[in-house]
């Protein structure tokens, strides 16, 4: 199993506020090659689930395993390396570094992993930009790209280190319908061509059709899943 969550609970306890139980005893297994769409209302725990899978937040209890390795038994260095090499992330919010060009943003994960030499990394980043249809924008800064183009660059960046897992958090929620369709088709194409495992939080049920499997969440639990 590529990703396993075992009886995971996540409680957020901000100072001077009531604790919030975002994930409530959730167990889930994602086999290699799956394209999972996660649906649910706002506050259902979808983003927290994705963050748990990426090791971006520590579970209050339970275990998160990636390729059988318990994420929270690893030190920061090992956990960061695993994130860098095995997981690609597409965020809901604009996440490109404004001081870097599109090409530099795509190549950024290589800065931390150093899998490729400088020139090789640039070639790979260029190929990925070509794949998402932005060859002519390689030297453009994020402020000169549309929201849809920025999200394509983010997708390219997520694939830079050839990850096993692609986690996408409402990657199309800020886009118009046509751009949303283009991005979703891009995910489908990437899944088909690379076989990467995709776990994607979606905001509308009609987007489920792009995935091979869907999960419905509510109150930090899985309500249903095919």
């Amino acid at each position, binding site marked *: 199993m590529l990703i396993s969550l075992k009886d995971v609970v996540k409680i*957020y306890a901000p100072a001077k506020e009531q604790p919030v139980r975002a994930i409530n005893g959730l167990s889930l297994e994602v086999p290699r090659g799956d394209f999972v769409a996660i649906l649910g209302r706002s506050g259902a725990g979808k*983003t*927290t689930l994705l*963050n748990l899978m*990426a090791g*971006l*937040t*520590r579970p209050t209890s339970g275990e998160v395993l990636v390729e059988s390795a318990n994420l929270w038994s690893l030190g*920061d*260095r090992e956990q*960061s*390396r695993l*994130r*860098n*090499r095995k997981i690609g*992330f597409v*965020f809901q*919010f604009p*996440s490109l*570094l*404004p*001081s*870097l060009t599109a090409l*530099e943003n795509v*190549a*950024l*994960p290589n*800065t*931390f*992993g150093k899998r490729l030499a400088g020139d090789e990394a640039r070639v790979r980043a260029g190929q990925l930009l070509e794949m998402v249809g932005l060859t002519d924008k390689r030297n453009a800064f994020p402020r000169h790209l549309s929201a849809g183009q920025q999200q394509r660059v983010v997708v390219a*960046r997520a694939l830079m*280190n050839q990850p096993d897992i692609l986690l996408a958090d409402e990657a199309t929620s800020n886009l118009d319908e046509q751009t949303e369709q283009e991005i979703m088709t891009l995910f489908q194409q990437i899944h088909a061509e690379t076989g990467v495992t995709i776990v994607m939080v979606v905001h509308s049920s009609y987007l489920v059709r792009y995935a091979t499997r869907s999960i419905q969440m509510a109150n930090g639990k899985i309500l249903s899943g095919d």
Partner: protein
Amino acid sequence: MNLFQLALRNISRNAFRSWTIFLCAFYISGFALAMMLIVHGAEQSLDLANQRLGADILVVPNGSEQKVETSLLMGNPTNVWMPREVVEKIARLPEVESISPQLYLATLTNAACCSVSNMFVIAFDPQTDFTITPWLEQRLGRALNPGEAIGGMYVFTPPGEEGIKIYGTFVRLMGNLEPTGTGLDRALFISFDTAYDIARNSRTRAVEPLQIPDNSISAALIRVRRGNAAQIVSMKIEQQIPEVTAIDSPELFLSYRNQINGLAEIVWMVLAIALVLSIAIVDLIFTMAVNARRREIAVLRALGSTRRSIFFSLLAEANLLAFGGGMAGLALSALAVYLFRNLLVSSLQMPFLLPSLPELVFVLAIGILVVLAAVSISVLPPALAASRREPALAMRE
């Protein structure tokens, strides 16, 4: 793209944050260096002047101590006299090893008979002198002949002239003493015989004759025998010869030392306050900048950056700015002190000597280390907090 380049890009992106840190480092380092150079230069100058005199005690006519000290330090000529018999009286004291009289003279102002206006001329007795004579023996290999002189660092023979004209008599400049940063650098040293020759010749060659009162001297330099305290010998001299003031070496230039110490205290206090304020400002600015970038930092963590590299890249950003600002401040400050050193001396009425190159490099290195340490202290809390913040929480905030 590496982490260093990433830090540079972030610096260029956030102009307000970058300029604030740069300017804080610039002002603190520049101000600290300028003040350090001035205070240290003045202290060093006083020490060298003391060494140049080479005496344990300086005896001057009563009430003229301030005038003499000012002359020696600032190079303004003075005209003070006391009976020559003072020398014999002091020499009889068993605690006194040697005593040497001096005459303090001045050239005329804007007179054709003098090459340099209002120049401080010190005449010494080659028979008893223990301050200039050792230098002459070492450098010249002999004593000065009549009509010869040596000068302070900045004394020179006017171009095309055979010597320096004093009251119509030319004296040949035989060499220059090392700089002290005091008035002694602009003073001319001649023997008693030369001084009396000039005075005799001046009656016919100068617009105004050089007056040296008969059997009079301006000051006497004393060395005490080993085992005797200069302070006690000074008191004994003043008791036995009431018309003179004896200033022992540590007390010499005391008013200037007090002035410098007072200035140093104020400078250090202002500097400490400025440093604390700068640390607070940089901390505040950096905290704001890091908060504004919390999502970006979370993204970097999601892409595989470790806590350690986040911490060090933030520290590197701040230290790059501090290094740039600090170096600019230090360089500009050193240049300003060098260019305006004469203005400093005249406006502060203090002696001043530029440090040697190794001393300057040492001070610059200390200065830049202090700036880097201060900025590191400032950014430590926000950098630590940013690197430790859970990425998911940072994205939610």
